[in-house]
């Protein structure tokens, strides 16, 4: 069974239960066939409310995966600070799918999550969500993800065709995702964003005094 260490323990700002999250994380690891010998640390940022969602999954060592998630990822959108188990289960399966990807040699060239472009990240998210749906985990939302993807790949037919391809793919490499991004980039006529998305480290940083 995968070793998972969840922080904070206990939660102080939201009524989340560390033991319950740990159990769901172990269940998620089993669902995706995550390798036993790899330890996982999962930090949940309980300060961030819905809709400030976000997930980062990185390889800290060949046998250790670090995950960081916004507490908003587990929060019932209808009821502030309330933990929603189904939402958490799906979020954790997504994270373990991406963690398992990072452990594969053909993802060795993938930048750390902080350094992924929005386009790269959205493409990876689509492939992840498609696999989540095929695993039969409740909570896959193709329409929701399609909008997130279109914001970063463009509202055009080329981007939509790539979405369908990524969604149904069983096995991809980092190079495959890069090629998909290059294809949508070439068809994207929009201006480039003036600034890049804020990153985890910025979300956690204190306000300048």
């Amino acid at each position, binding site marked *: 069974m995968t070793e998972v260490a969840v922080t904070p323990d206990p939660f102080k700002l939201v009524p989340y239960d560390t033991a319950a999250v740990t159990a769901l994380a172990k269940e998620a690891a089993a669902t995706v066939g995550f390798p036993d010998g790899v330890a996982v640390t999962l930090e949940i940022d309980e300060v961030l409310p819905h809709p400030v969602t976000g997930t980062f999954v990185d390889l800290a060592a060949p046998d250790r995966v670090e995950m960081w998630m916004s507490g908003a990822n587990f929060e019932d959108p209808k009821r502030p600070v309330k933990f929603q188990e189904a939402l958490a289960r799906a979020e954790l399966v997504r994270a373990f799918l991406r963690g398992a990807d990072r452990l594969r040699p053909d993802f060795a060239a993938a930048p750390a999550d902080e350094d992924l472009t929005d386009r790269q990240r959205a493409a990876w998210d689509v492939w992840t969500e498609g696999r989540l749906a095929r695993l039969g985990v409740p909570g896959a939302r193709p329409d929701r993800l399609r909008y997130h993807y279109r914001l970063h790949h463009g509202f055009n037919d080329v981007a939509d065709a790539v979405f369908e391809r990524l969604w149904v793919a069983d096995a991809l490499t980092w190079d495959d995702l890069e090629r998909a991004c290059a294809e949508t980039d070439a068809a994207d006529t929009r201006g480039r964003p003036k*600034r890049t998305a804020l990153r985890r480290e910025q979300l956690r940083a204190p306000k300048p005094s």
Partner: protein
Amino acid sequence: MRKIFPPNELARDERFVRTKIEDRVFDPRNAALMERDLGSARLEPSRPAAADRARSLMHGIFVGEIQALEGAGRTCFDFDDQDAPFQLKLDMARQCWDESRHVEISVKLGEWMGSEIGEFTESTFLYEAACADDPVMRLCGVNRALEGLAIDVFNTMKEFGDIAGDPVLEFCEDWMLADEVTHVKMGSDWLRRLTEKDPERRDRALEFQRTVDKIFSLGGFRGESEENPVHLARKFRRMAGFDEAEMDELVEIANQAQAEAEAMATAAAQAGPGAGAGTYGS
């Protein structure tokens, strides 16, 4: 049929869940959140969780349209012709037609963005502003304050659609924005006509409008700095009958609301975990 319909009896099916504004104000995370450097709060595709933020705002617009329809409908019914002239009721009836169309557009936009009816919480404070017993107050609270906010929100969403290259969102928001300008202008015109010979009544109504504006600034939701997700759409407000002094005052009201929300969050944090509404024990 009774007049002045209470907000807690508005008809909703099981998909809708309501929250109180206090739940948001006294959220135990607020103080810690204010310590974070979250950068610009403007709604832009490059912001973290942009899609979720946009969906959440879109759902807020959707429930706001339902309540605007309910409010304008009540104004057609709640007053006799002496309190509210027939022409005013005709304008409110026209507004009902517009709001119905906006509800349908908002449902379709929600689907387009991957959301669904009832996915997010509903607050009924828009409708509550439409429960005043003086039609002039309703016009100030709803048509000038809340439909004015709708101008700011729709303009923000339109800009989001433009930057994202989302032609559907940009187009729909632009059309709804045009209607909102008309609704605000109706409020400005009727305020002037109904209080022409009663300056005290006008003052009371404008004071009510300031109160509603402050509540709806939601502790920094609307303003003119990078910390505000929704920005004042001065050009469209001008078209709707607002003068520069009124808009400057609105910015000041929004700044006050933000400062008060920060003070409340700090006070709640100093009182320790468990203080304030929406708390829990463990």
